[in-house]
């Protein structure tokens, strides 16, 4: 099993960190293999930003994503750029508040998560990416929740661990509620 994940948004949203958390959960805290690559512009905030993670039970020979099985999208620009790369019947998680214009006939399982809004309710929109990771965990069942939590703890500043774990739980609950609706 080889699963390709692409995360897209803009600089400052924790797109790169999201990739690192998913990869660490898989290959450091879990016993799968993982690779992670990131690409971003010279700006630290606001520029185009992408990270790609491959998770596999076996060896990962070619370490680049070709057609993602799962897309996590946190900006309109990233949506337009990557949505057509998604595999048919793949999974799309999208921060719907940030992506007002979506394709209607997309052949994918689409989960709309108002991640930035939920993060703001928790007190800081900076944890929107972790809300997305929570929703990802709930709708994909790809990874162990405890492994993800361990990876979050080791990847965020100590003072923000509680806030991030809360963000994860909220995202997870939201993801679960979407599954029930379907």
């Amino acid at each position: 099993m080889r699963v390709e994940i692409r995360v897209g948004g803009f600089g400052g949203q924790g797109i790169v960190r999201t990739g690192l958390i998913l990869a660490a959960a898989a290959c450091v805290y879990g016993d799968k293999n993982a690779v992670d690559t990131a690409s971003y512009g010279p700006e630290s905030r606001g520029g185009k930003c992408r990270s790609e993670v491959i998770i596999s039970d076996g060896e990962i020979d070619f370490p680049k994503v070709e057609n993602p099985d799962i897309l996590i999208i946190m900006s309109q620009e990233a949506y337009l750029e990557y949505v057509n790369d998604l595999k048919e019947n793949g999974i799309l998680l999208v921060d719907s508040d940030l992506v007002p214009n979506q394709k209607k006939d997309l052949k994918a399982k689409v989960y709309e998560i108002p991640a930035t809004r939920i993060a703001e309710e928790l007190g800081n929109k900076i944890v929107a990416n972790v809300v997305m990771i929570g929703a990802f965990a709930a709708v994909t069942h790809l990874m162990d929740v405890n492994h993800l939590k361990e990876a979050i703890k080791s990847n965020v500043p100590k003072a923000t661990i509680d806030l991030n774990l809360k963000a994860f739980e909220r995202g997870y609950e939201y993801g679960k509620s979407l599954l029930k609706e379907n």
Partner: protein
Amino acid sequence: MTEQRTVLTGKHLMQGDMACAEGAIAAGCRFFAGYPITPATEIAERMARRMIEVGGIYVQMEDELASMAAIIGASWAGVKAMTATSGPGFSLMQENIGLAAMTETPCVVVNIMRGSPSTGQPTEPGQQDVMQAQWGSHGDYDVIALAPASVQEMFDLTIECFNLSETYRVPTFLLADGFIGHLWERVIIPPLEEIKVVKRKKPKVPPEKYIPFKPDDDLVPPMANFGDGYRVHVTGLTHDEHGYPRTDDPEVQFKLVQRLCEKIRKNAEKIIKIKELMLEDAEVAVIAYGIASRASISAVKKAREAGIKAGLLRLVTVWPFPEKIVSEIANQVKAIVVPEMNYGQLVREVERAAKETPVHFIPKLGGEPHKPDEIFEVIRRAVK
């Protein structure tokens, strides 16, 4: 300093550059001089922090000429020393790389290759400095260069670079592409006692009997560091076994240059490391290194599924070039496929060794590595 801080034993998610820095520390490197450059900056960044923790020295130099000079000096003072750069800095280092070769100074130079020539593509990976690694400085000398294909190998092969550099007293290169340098993967760092580290070969004779550049049977002279109590004279001029300039003696020049080359060539079989995949019955062989070898694995597996007897020779050692091994494979297969992230470099060595066997080259420029399908297509056409 606790051992835990020195060697970060355990399982980590690391970027290739970070793993390289940790490999250097595990190998005993305690001096880093460098000038940050994309995509090698993360090595300098980590060494700046880690050298303090392990009791070493980090110097940010004014440029790469000085960086190379500084690690030569540090090595003669008895410390394992390294610098890290990318293409533009590697060019600036060439004069002093020649000095390191001529003075037989153990040192490690990491080159995280990016798109070039000139300043080229700072943030994009390439494999365009492969010939420069062997032929970059003027004159005849042989070097050792290793090409990692994973983050684990960024750790393992950096240690190996130090070991080879100390064993053969030669500047040794970790020749990684920017893709592997910036890739994040799991690294398993073993306990300190399981890490094999080669110690410098010191003179076994008292100071008055020491002849500093008189080689042993392996063609490598034992090395006394400055301050060990031995008289040592070090020069880039042609020198005799005592280390003194003898620039007008053709025989001294011949013997010296011959030994600089032969100490690597004669020991090539001990130095060279390769990895084989499904080559036993192969009719077509892919020969690749670094990131291009990762896509090649996928391509070879796909070819096998399609009923094509394909195999892969992955070059861990790029220099000395595994000529004999490539010749043997060329005798066995109908065709060879070489993907490189350049416009044709190591493929020339492959062609030389392959003789009559046709060699299909797949160039790649721009930053995106070869896709498995691109290599698969050439494999398919090669056996038609």
